[in-house]
């Protein structure tokens, strides 16, 4: 089955109740099995510019490449699958575009963005992230984070300085240790996970998980799994009802059917027609 028939994707973004503009950017395209979410930072409208560059670089470059290549295949001599490499390399590319724009235009100095993106192919999802935008997964009754934040707080949790429970009380939230566009180089974190039919994936900016407890986010998706668009708007509504102190964005991806990579002769035939 084609990935676009196997996935249901919805996304919403909202400025929240306090901020005057929305520095989050999202895009998704079921035809390519792609979801991208970025949470920009920087003065004036620089945050929007940064997250906008990141999202457009990833979505246009990846789609362009996948018009002539299969994500599960490897370039001759390459170690990683094309899908994996596309996520990693295009985050680096976005990093450089943002960094260069910030260097050349004083009003954009210091801008940057977090990013989380997923590419669904061959019954798997490749996930790239930088910063504290997250991917969660609901599988059966278990709702858990898939990504681990690049943040001071997460580092403190990892090194045992502070417990996960105590982390809620920390005053050091929102300090990310990696971001796209603030340095000439960035280290994207990429992993590939197996996907099961019935899974629901949530990509979100910290405007959601700072305002709504993980347990409530999971319960909402579980209850409203029959209506993904409503689940997305309920999540945003809950963040806003709890104060909505930041922009809030969500992308929900439901796996409706399995989507193995087309096998042998069929893949060759279709790729031959594409060329």
């Amino acid at each position: 089955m084609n990935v676009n028939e196997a996935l249901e994707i919805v996304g919403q973004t909202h400025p929240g109740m306090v901020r005057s503009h929305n520095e989050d950017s999202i895009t998704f395209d079921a035809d390519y099995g792609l979801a991208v979410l970025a949470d920009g930072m920087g003065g004036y409208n620089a945050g929007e510019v940064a997250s906008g560059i990141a999202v457009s670089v990833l979505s246009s470059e990846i789609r362009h490449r996948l018009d002539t290549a299969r994500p599960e295949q490897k370039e001759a001599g390459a170690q990683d699958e094309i899908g994996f490499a596309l996520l990693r390399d295009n985050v680096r590319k976005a990093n450089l575009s943002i960094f260069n724009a910030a260097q050349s235009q004083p009003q954009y100095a210091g801008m940057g963005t977090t990013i989380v993106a997923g590419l669904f192919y061959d019954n798997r999802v490749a996930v790239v992230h930088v910063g504290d935008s997250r991917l969660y997964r609901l599988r059966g009754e278990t709702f858990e984070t898939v990504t681990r934040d690049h943040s001071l707080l997460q580092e403190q949790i990892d090194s045992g300085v502070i417990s996960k429970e105590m982390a809620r009380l920390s005053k050091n939230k929102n300090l990310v240790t990696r971001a796209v566009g603030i340095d000439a180089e960035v280290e994207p974190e990429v992993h590939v996970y197996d996907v099961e039919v019935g899974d629901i994936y949530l990509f979100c900016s910290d405007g959601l998980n700072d305002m709504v407890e993980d347990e409530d986010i999971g319960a909402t998706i579980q209850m409203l799994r029959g209506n993904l668009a409503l689940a997305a708007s309920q999540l945003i509504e809950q963040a806003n009802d709890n104060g909505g102190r930041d922009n809030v964005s969500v992308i929900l991806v439901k796996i409706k059917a399995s989507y193995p990579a087309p096998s042998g002769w069929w893949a060759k035939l279709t790729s031959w027609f594409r060329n």
Partner: protein
Amino acid sequence: MPAKLILSMDGAVIKEYALDKERITIGRKPHNDIAIDNLAVSSEHAAVITILNDSFFEDLNSTNGSLVNGTPTLKHFLQNNDVIEIGKYKLKYLNDQPTQTTSADFEKTMVLRAPVRTSSAAPAAPVDEQNAKYESTMQFNATAPRDVPRPAAPAAAPAAAGTPVAVIQILNGPNLGKELELSKNLTTLGKPGVQVAVLARRPHGYFITHVEGTSFPLVNGSSIGEQPRQVNDHDVIELAGIKMEFYLKA
């Protein structure tokens, strides 16, 4: 404005110490940042580690120990107004830094610049092992009698503290008379695959929204369509052939 410790004994303030460096030591010897010349205090008794806006108390295996808020403590993540007791001395921790949650400015995400690690051997992020279980949809069936599951007592403080507790009472069918307290932010009603609606508790009241099914729920006899609709005391909701009354408990 850095956080600070206020040293006092018997209610009389002795001195204030700003937590303006990463590690501040407390002890009897004069080289400590907070030197307390008293025999009940170990020579190097305790330390306070400060990382940006968070501070951590640590007892350095002192002879007589330390209390934090009355409890013997070795390590503690300090919160505003915590009181550390060492012998007869008290150290009150004050961090009146507006919590990030009170001022939009503090919410801004900032980047902590760290050298970019170029090693590609990043550890695989383990998937968190928190097995959250959720109650399933409240189900009812007009033909097969079925107990209406009772919701668990609300675990955390309700988000909408000012909202009175609302209840749904079933008015017909095998579950006639059964009540369901709407103790959670969201409660789904109906039968998955047939017709489901969700009742959301919001700061300004309760709202019903259609989730799935070919027909929409009725409120007081009229269809709500696709949009959320506020429900008021004693409204009658009807879905999947079941009528129920929504009311607010005094």
